[in-house]
């Protein structure tokens, strides 16, 4: 059955979308910052993995940790040094700020790495898993599984750790959290750092799937944006559901109506969802 193959395509794609989006969703939900830098963070993570593989032979799956750590530091510094200064300003102002920062960082990457596309070509790629008529590319599946593990780990951290609960508290009510003694500025920086960490990790995973170049950043940002809206802002399970929903819809849309219509269909679905359920599939009611 060819539909199983299409479904498998959609699920694998969706897993990667979820991983790209989860950090973006966290930052948007908790800080109310639409982080235009997110796509560039993903690409930066992919470059970390590429350099690690090209010069030290480190497998990109291992580089997930390295890329995550580097991006965390960058994200934390940007939030603590710059965005926190205007965090109380309306969302359009912080959006403009991250837009300006993105112009700088992306341009710097373009100058440093050039726009030439690079790709991690693994010396020993995982073999494809063939189940009946369904082809599952080994490395993609592995990347997707790792993406889910990471996202699950983030979800547990938010639920169970002290810092995680502080983040959730800030998300729910910033003023009340401050009154309860939560160091809001520090939590902001940590949250933004975690958002960047997830972007970097996603980038490292994507490095074996997609060609790497600074000019791909807007594509990743766009996907993160859509996934967030479909799933609901600031929620980790929401990003996962949104990512998978988008992946599956795109796969079937492209299969039935032709690849040129895949985008139109997913946008149409998004509009429809906004009418019916503006908070996203898993969004809470009244959360506008």
């Amino acid at each position: 059955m060819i539909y199983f193959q299409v479904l498998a395509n959609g699920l694998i794609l969706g897993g990667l979308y979820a991983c790209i989006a989860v950090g973006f969703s966290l930052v948007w939900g908790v800080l109310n910052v639409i982080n235009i830098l997110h796509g560039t963070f993903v690409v930066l993570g992919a470059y970390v993995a590429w350099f690690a593989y090209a010069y030290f032979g480190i497998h990109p799956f291992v580089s997930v940790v390295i890329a995550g750590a580097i991006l965390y530091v960058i994200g934390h510094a940007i939030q603590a040094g710059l965005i926190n200064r205007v965090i109380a300003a309306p969302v359009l102002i912080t959006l403009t700020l991250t837009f300006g920062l993105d112009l700088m960082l992306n341009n710097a990457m373009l100058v440093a790495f050039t726009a030439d596309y690079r790709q991690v070509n693994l010396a020993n790629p995982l073999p494809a898993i063939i189940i009946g008529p369904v082809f599952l590319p080994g490395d993609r599946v592995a990347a997707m599984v790792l993406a889910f593990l990471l996202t699950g780990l983030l979800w547990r951290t938010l639920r169970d750790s002290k810092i995680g609960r502080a983040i959730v508290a800030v998300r729910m009510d910033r003023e009340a959290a401050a009154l309860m003694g939560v160091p809001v500025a520090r939590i902001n920086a940590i949250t933004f750092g975690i958002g960047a960490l997830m972007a970097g990790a996603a980038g490292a995973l994507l490095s074996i799937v997609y060609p790497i170049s600074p000019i791909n950043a807007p594509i990743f940002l766009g996907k993160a944006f859509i996934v967030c809206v479909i799933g609901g802002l600031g929620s980790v399970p929401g990003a996962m559901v949104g990512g998978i929903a988008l992946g599956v819809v795109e796969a079937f849309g492209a299969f039935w109506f032709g690849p040129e219509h895949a985008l139109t269909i997913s946008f149409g679905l998004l509009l429809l969802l906004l009418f019916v359920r503006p908070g996203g599939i898993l969004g809470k009611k009244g959360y506008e």
Partner: protein
Amino acid sequence: MKNWLILLAGTGVLALLPLLGDNYLMRLATMVAMYVILAQSWNFIGGLAGYPSFATAGFFGLGAYTSAVLQGMGVPLFASWGAGGLAAVIFSALVGGAILHLRGHYFAIASLVTVEVLREIVNTTPDITGGGMGLNLPIMRMTVAEHATFFFYSMLAVAFACMACAIVVHKSKLGFALRCIQQNEDAANILGVNAYLYKTIGFGFSAVFAGIAGAIYASWVHYIEPPDVFDVLISVKPLVMVLLGGLGTIFGPVIGAFILLTFEEFVWRTFLTVHAAALGVIIVALVLFLPNGVLSLTREKLGLRRRAAGEKR
């Protein structure tokens, strides 16, 4: 009255520009006029009513394609421009009816998505629009100077009409209603303001001039492609211009348009491959270190809007 004088004087001075005989300066001035139109258009819905619309590129592109397709069918130039504006208004009414009940982020996203949908529709109907191959417009047989002057005056005339319309609206019941909606939409509804109607009208104003500007733009460049006229930057720039100049004011968008174009032109000339970063530095510096320049006029209003929109913070 003072507003009218400023507008007339400003337009009058600009109208003398062709006397200098510098075609490139005229191109820049035409672009300033186009930016003014786009910024002022956004201001109707974004500045007055507090609805952060990203639909500007949709209106612009729809106007461009409507007039281009009609001209290909032999419709005269000015009629096709009018039709471009009309198409944008009709579209805004249809879409506005559907998405204006959303607020805050969600309205922003929905309006952004309408642009993407329009672009993909144009992309996938090659028989009418040329699709990804783009669309040619009839070439005008006139000299370089005539060409530059004609499009400069056309754009300037629309900018003037748009500004005049803004002055009227700001003073009118519509302007008052839109400001009420921005400050507290629920209260406005309770007080008997038909918020939905006024929002839709405001959205229509933000469409008509952007549509005409798109139509003129298409004739100006002779050849349009979907990624060019449905460019997301066409939606983002008006917002930046209005924020730079002053949200919800009459001349703020004009000032913002001048500032943005001047910055763009300056960094673009000065830095060959790092002009994007240079523009980024300027934007970041403005937001961080000159908050009075950017925020003083806007913080209060945006703050009120956010509370009105009931966003959770």
